[in-house]
């Protein structure tokens, strides 16, 4: 086994993802298959290989072009809040995090 149910629970917590016990069991088995398959990468000698950072760095294209840092019109708060599940007083509303 490459991965245990305990590790799946731990990782799900890191990802803020609520999973049922059934899902934990299923993903544990699925991930185990995938991680066993991924073992084959160890057949490749990469001791003198740089990790890929950006695919076009090798193509000779200067993509590091950044736009001019000038102010642009932004969305009004009304537009920005339009798809929010809960909003009010021009703000996103979330469950209370600070006790008065």
């Amino acid at each position, binding site marked *: 086994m490459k991965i245990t149910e305990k590790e799946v629970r731990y*990782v799900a917590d890191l*990802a*803020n993802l609520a999973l049922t016990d059934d899902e934990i069991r299923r993903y544990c088995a699925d991930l185990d298959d995938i991680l066993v398959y*991924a073992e084959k990468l160890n057949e490749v000698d990469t001791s003198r290989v740089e990790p890929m950072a950006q*695919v076009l760095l090798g193509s000779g*294209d200067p993509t590091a072009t950044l*736009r001019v840092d000038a102010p642009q019109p932004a969305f009004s708060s009304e537009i920005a809040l339009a798809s*929010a599940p809960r909003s009010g007083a021009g703000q996103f509303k*979330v469950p209370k995090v600070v006790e008065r």
Partner: protein
Amino acid sequence: MDGVKTLTIDRIHEGLRARQFSAVELARQALEAAQKENDQYGSFLLFCPERALEAAARVDAKIAAGEPLGPLAGVPVAVKDVIVTRGVRTTCGSRILESYVPPYDATAVIRLERAGGMILGKTNCDEFAMGSSTENSAFYPVRNPAAPDRVPGGSSGGSAAAVAAGQAVVSLGSDTGGSIRQPASFCGVVGILPTYGRVSRYGLVAFASSLDHIGPFGRTVKDAATLLHVIAGRDPADSTSADVPVADYTAGLDGKAAGFRVGVPREYFGAGLDPQVADRIQRGIEVFRKMGCEVREVSLPHTDYAIASYYIICTAEASSNLARYDGVRYSRRSEREDTLLDMYRYSRGEGFGAEVKRRIILGTYVLSAGYYDAYYLKAQKVRTLIARDFTDAFQSVDAIVTPASPFPAFKLGEKMADPLEMYLSDIYTITASLAGICGVSVPCGRTSEGLPVGMQILAKYFDEHRMLRLAHAFEQAGGFGAG
């Protein structure tokens, strides 16, 4: 007017200029036909008739004023639902975004509408573009127009099926590991993966940012090339979009391919390749020979490591990109919101489908302390070697030809039980995604059951114009055609 089904962009422009039909008439007819057939194919998630008719009216006004027509004037277009459209719901095939109405348009959408394109609606796809069959859509599956009991491929299955069924003339899809080329091959249409950075990703909902591309589908190489030409080019809103001149992709389509050096990678014809697909691809390679191409064997030695590398990198990036769906700004919120943390956890747990959760877990795992070097860094090193394989091969050939998929369209449900088996179906498309080069899938005959087979043609960075010239010559000489 001809039925919408067989229209090409050239034919539409002839008809508009000769006043055989107006753009509004064409838009109405296309919308009516596409909506009527959607129960049958499931290719669209939503139609936006008002938007299409407004675009059509603008085209008709230009015609009336005698102004020149844009390259997509009066062309019915479908847009994959991972590409944002201002004021038109964009769900990414996910419950978590089922009511999201974006306040802006993707750059590709702005450009295609500026060129006169008429967006009929948004197409079905695997949730957040994660899948190879479009069965991971949270809403309903798409049926392959060539064989209704089979999948259209994925993740851009709706965009491929809409074009194959004639519901749209061209469409936009997205390709992260094959999501344009594989459904194009399954549905018997043309699908282009542009070079990374060729088309702005601004407004493409992010799945794996180092691998995501927007690209076109068409029933002919010329139609797909026309759409690519419209959407390609530098965009200040996407810092990874390349500042490289855009060639006129339709200008060189002269049916001539003599002298092209075409490489056939030996690693792509091994175990797992369906014998009928192998046969059609071999016949296709003969077509290249007959056109005067010089066909030679090449080697891409790290091919066998591509899937493992890809699924580590793409899930790592996905786990990070999908952190934004937290029930606060634009996603569905769970009823269970006693605490902020519970609200996050249950909104995500209830809103995401099975495959998305699987990939978030895998991606979080490979990035977590103690595993980062063993998985993520290792995969990025292997990715360097896979890209180098192509650079080496392109020293001696102009293009590389392979099957687009090891098998033709499979039956709905056939591969849903085993995620790894589904991942393995991406073997021939994933290598080019990791390298960032361009590619195209072109129809290459059908199996004895009538299922389309796709020839994948790959070319160097920013060499779309020569790749499409070769693809077009192949389409003309092979007589395979779409449909």
